[in-house]
């Protein structure tokens, strides 16, 4: 029941933001237009107040969600896909391919991620494509590692051999027997990737490494600092975007917890036998 309530809240938050990102921009004012007095506090005209340039903060928050979530979704999809394909290939083929892919993964993992992102982002022309490329390049190795471990352990699990003995074809074993076992891992990887992509993207843009003309959650925060929001006490220029990021992240985290819990009782129930040949555990009849 508790898990269900968390799942419902998480799903409501995430779906809420997704629909705001998809439909919201149709209903709000132009977020870049200079509509009102600069740094006006929230009022009936401007629900979330205005920025230092007199732009509508409400419109910026809603439109910013679209770009940020779109890039994050694409990045999460790409990183999980690339990671899953490379990880599964490595685990499935083994040998030299596995050794080379694992080496590449480890090299990427050892490299300090955030400084690398900053350096790459500084060299490429700013924009959503650069953002996607940078985050995808640095994001996939985690997923490759997770999926490789999962596939390697699944492949040697006896239920695969049992399906073979029953006469199942290879493709049916992979698609019907193995894939559902990977679903929970891919699902929580995707959620993790979304969190990472939103966080890293906002962080980079906040540092001014994004396209400053675009309206995103990250640039909203960049301009808020640029306009000395803290000094002038105009909290409304950064709180809506910050709260949006926090609430979206919270929703994702809740979903992630629930997914992990769904996956784990069964994972725990499949016994102590790990991958590879294992000696029979010692069990003495007479103690």
């Amino acid at each position, binding site marked *: 029941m508790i898990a269900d309530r968390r799942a419902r809240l998480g799903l409501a938050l995430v779906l809420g933001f997704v629909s705001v990102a998809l439909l919201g921009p149709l209903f709000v004012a132009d977020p870049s237009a200079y509509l009102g007095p600069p740094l006006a506090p929230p009022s009936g005209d401007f629900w979330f107040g205005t920025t230092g340039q007199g732009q509508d903060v409400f419109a910026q928050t809603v439109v910013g969600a679209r770009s940020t979530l779109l890039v994050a979704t694409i990045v999460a999809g790409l990183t999980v896909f690339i990671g899953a394909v490379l990880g599964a290939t490595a685990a499935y083929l083994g040998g*030299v391919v596995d*050794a080379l892919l694992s080496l590449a993964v480890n090299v990427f993992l050892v490299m300090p991620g955030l400084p690398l992102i900053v350096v790459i982002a500084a060299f490429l022309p700013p924009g959503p494509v650069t953002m996607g490329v940078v985050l995808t390049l640095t994001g996939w190795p985690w997923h490759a590692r997770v999926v490789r471990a999962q596939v390697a352990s699944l492949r040697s*699990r*006896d*239920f695969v*051999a*049992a*399906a*073979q*003995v*029953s*006469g*199942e074809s290879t493709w049916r074993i992979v698609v019907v*027997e193995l894939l*559902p*076992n990977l679903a929970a891992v891919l699902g929580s990887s995707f959620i993790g990737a979304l969190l990472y992509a939103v966080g890293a993207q906002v962080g980079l843009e906040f540092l001014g490494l994004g396209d400053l003309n675009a309206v995103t959650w990250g640039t909203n925060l960049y301009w808020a600092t640029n306009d000395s929001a803290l000094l002038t006490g105009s909290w409304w220029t950064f709180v809506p975007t910050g709260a949006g990021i926090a609430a979206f992240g919270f929703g994702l985290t809740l979903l992630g917890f629930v997914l992990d819990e769904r996956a784990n*009782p*069964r*994972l*725990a*129930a*499949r*016994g102590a*036998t790990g991958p590879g*040949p294992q*000696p*029979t*555990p*010692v*069990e*003495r*009849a*007479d103690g």
Partner: protein
Amino acid sequence: MTPLLTVEGLGVEFPVGNWPRRRTLRASFDVSFSVGRGEIVALVGESGSGKSTIGRVIARILPAKAGRVTLHGPGERDTDSFGPRAGEASMRWRQRVQLIFQDPAASLNPVFPVGHPVARALRLHGRADPKTVDERVAAALEAVGLHPGATFATRYPHQLSGGQRQRVSIARALATDPDLVIADEPTSMLDVSIRMDILRLFTTIRASGTRSVLLITHDLASARLVADRVVVLYAGEVMELGPARAVLDAPRHPYAQLLAAAATRSGDLRAPLPAAEGAPKVIDPGPGCPFAPRCAQATDRCRAERPALTAVSPDHAVRCHLVRPE
């Protein structure tokens, strides 16, 4: 007795270690034995002696490096055999040979209710159609003692006890109506209290008189209880084979004697063997008898020359230089 299965000169190797320190591990070497129709044959030996490997090769989930495995049919045309470089097993082989795994939790897919594997086995071999499959699954589960079958079919593996899971595995294996059931230590992961029930299930499996069981076990007591004949393995080689009584009560091979002595003390092969001088050498084995390094009676000849499997009576053979035919 007409043989159902004959294994001749079976060899299996595994690569171990990574390049450039790659070696081969000889898990099974020159293994020959047969299983008669309606017979229960026990494959015994300590951990790592290659019991599971041989079972998996016969069930065709592992390729053979050498030798030949033949499944004899009731008719000439039903006889089927394979050797090294064999491709995928035929559906006929899959129907006739079934394998029950040691770990009942690992051998059931955690994401499906336990009716699924039984239903798949029935459907794959044309033993049920979409309309009758639920009914057949329930009947198959009830046949192995899971009442009511229809309720059990909808449970997930983690909702069952170890013994119940193993019953599901047995139901899946029997669903194809196999000629040979290979059971790889089917009771070793189970509670002592339910081992007997599961073992009894195996004696009923062959009750029809045409179904054979290859029971892989390290528990000599259960081998004596249910097996007609016993094959003793050491380091992937057959050391002694013959009628269960003869091999277990009056073993001739020094290793079999050691096993039997250890088993009377503890009832189980897992007890450390006396004269244990390290693990058997399965990587780079020498030219002599594999047991020579641990054998109290070993001579220079034992270390230099591999003994042949010699018959000591018509149905009983021993691989040892020190044992003379009577």
